[in-house]
């Protein structure tokens, strides 16, 4: 395991220090907690958004704390949902009285820990609403399981619900638009290499020189199956087929695209993926209103990528283009 770290037990703490030192104009640390909040939290008259999850997905989630996106990000241990007390502190720190929306990715651990935190905050009289992101179409018979996972599509939820909150909308309205994004975003990913949780010291799985994992999550979990590495056009077409089978776009629809790197994939390759995504959408007469290409929701040093498509309507499109100013996402 080759990592640029001091000690596995210190990575989260030291990373949070590094983030705050890098971006003092955007974020500050909640003293004593693994929680990052906007420098000016709580923002008066605004519903607050709290997200988070295990660490190792940077820039998610701390990188999206700032104007027009999140008010707080809670950092768990690497790939491990944060504990309820941490989330509870985040909620308290950012609530301006207008209520707090928790953006949760659909993993058993995240759901339970955020639920417990919500109960604690509600006991204090804080209005809390929750949305659960489940954009990953990799898992097929998800109805009889825990449901689909939340992966990179979450970034669109942060962006759009965050923009809605910035308009002064109430908690219900912010929750509603977040639900709308969730209902309209689908993702799927693949990996060329595994990743290594620092404290584990060895990779979660191994892949042969020509093997890839298809349909995997963002925690180094194995995917739905393995196959031989194919060309970028073939792999992209395969993932797009799965996504489009679920999202069901009609000619004339408008979407936002996120080609997300998992950590070790060169931007060059992500642009190759993007090229094919656009070709497929163009062939289907689907219009692309906005494209994001880069590392938005990573899995440590995993090589691979995911594709997310968000079907837009007038409201979500406008909010997607609204200004945002955070360490990892700035839009004028």
């Amino acid at each position, binding site marked *: 395991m080759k990592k640029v770290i001091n000690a596995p037990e210190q990575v989260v703490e030291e990373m949070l220090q590094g983030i705050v030192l890098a971006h003092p104009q955007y974020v500050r640390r909640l003293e004593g907690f693994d929680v990052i909040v906007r420098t000016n939290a709580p923002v008066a008259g605004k519903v607050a958004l709290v997200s988070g999850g*295990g660490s190792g997905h940077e820039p998610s989630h701390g990188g999206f704390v700032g104007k027009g996106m999140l008010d707080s990000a809670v950092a*768990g*241990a*690497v*790939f*491990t*949902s*944060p*504990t*309820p*007390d*941490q989330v509870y502190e985040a909620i308290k720190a950012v609530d301006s009285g207008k209520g707090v929306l928790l953006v949760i990715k659909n*993993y*058993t*651990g995240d759901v*339970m*820990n955020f*639920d*417990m935190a919500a109960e604690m905050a509600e006991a204090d009289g804080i209005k809390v609403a929750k949305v659960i992101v489940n954009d*990953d179409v*990799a*898992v*097929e*018979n998800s109805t*009889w*399981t*825990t449901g689909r*996972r939340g992966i990179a599509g979450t970034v669109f939820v942060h962006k759009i619900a965050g923009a809605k909150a910035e308009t002064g909308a109430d908690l219900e309205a912010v929750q509603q638009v977040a639900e709308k994004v969730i209902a309209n975003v689908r993702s799927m990913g693949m990996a060329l290499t595994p990743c290594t*949780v620092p*404290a*584990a010291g*060895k*990779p*979660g*799985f191994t892949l042969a020189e020509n093997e890839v994992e298809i349909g995997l*999550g963002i*925690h*180094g*979990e*194995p995917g*739905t*199956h393995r196959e031989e590495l194919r060309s970028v056009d073939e792999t992209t077409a395969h993932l797009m087929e799965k996504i489009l089978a679920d999202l069901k776009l009609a000619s004339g629809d408008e979407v936002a695209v996120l080609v997300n790197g998992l950590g070790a994939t060169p931007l060059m390759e992500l642009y190759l993926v993007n090229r094919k995504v656009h070709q497929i959408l163009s062939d289907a007469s689907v219009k692309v209103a906005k494209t994001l290409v880069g590392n938005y929701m990573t899995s440590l040093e995993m090589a691979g990528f995911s594709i997310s498509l968000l079907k837009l309507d007038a409201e979500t499109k406008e909010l997607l283009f609204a200004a945002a100013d955070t360490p990892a996402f700035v839009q004028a």
Partner: protein
Amino acid sequence: MSSFTVAALEAVADRIIQHKELLTSLDAAIGDADHGINMARGFEAVRVKIRAAAPETDISGLLKMTGMTLISTVGGASGPLYGTAFMRAAAAAQGKETLDQEAIAQIWSAALQGIKDRGKASRGEKTMLDAMEPAYEAFVEAAKAEKSLVESLEVACEAAKEGIEFTKTIIATKGRASYLGERSLGHQDPGATSSYLMLAALTEFFHNQQLGA
């Protein structure tokens, strides 16, 4: 009773910490390679907490301390689940002064229910419940059959072990392993394994107490 309970909890904590790598590697196969890390982090904190507990802390108090500590240090799925289990155990242990067979059955029952309430899973979904529930049932059965506490625990341990084996034969439908579909087959569940380890530690602890004390 306090030092006895502390010692019992320490035995559990030690066992988990010793098996950090095993649990992590089991989780690597069908999860995200952190179960051992999470549990060890939690039980290290528990060990510190209970060692420092005021001597007058009762069984319920120690269980609550354990539950709260697990909730605030483990994270992931297992943190809230085991944390809730110990919190419910604490509630059930209120006023209890000895850990006899009946007390243990009541406390265990509450803990089990806590896991079910929190995780909304049932047996056969490839989770910790597949070790925990048959073990609990075997324990109650053995108690009914007038077996001793240690004997009953040993029977429960066997059932938990079988439960682990059983998890290898089924597809996960709860927790992170459920995303794997068929690929989860053949692998034993990390949470079922940690449940068994805790129980095994407790059984050995009572066994030694019986011999030594």
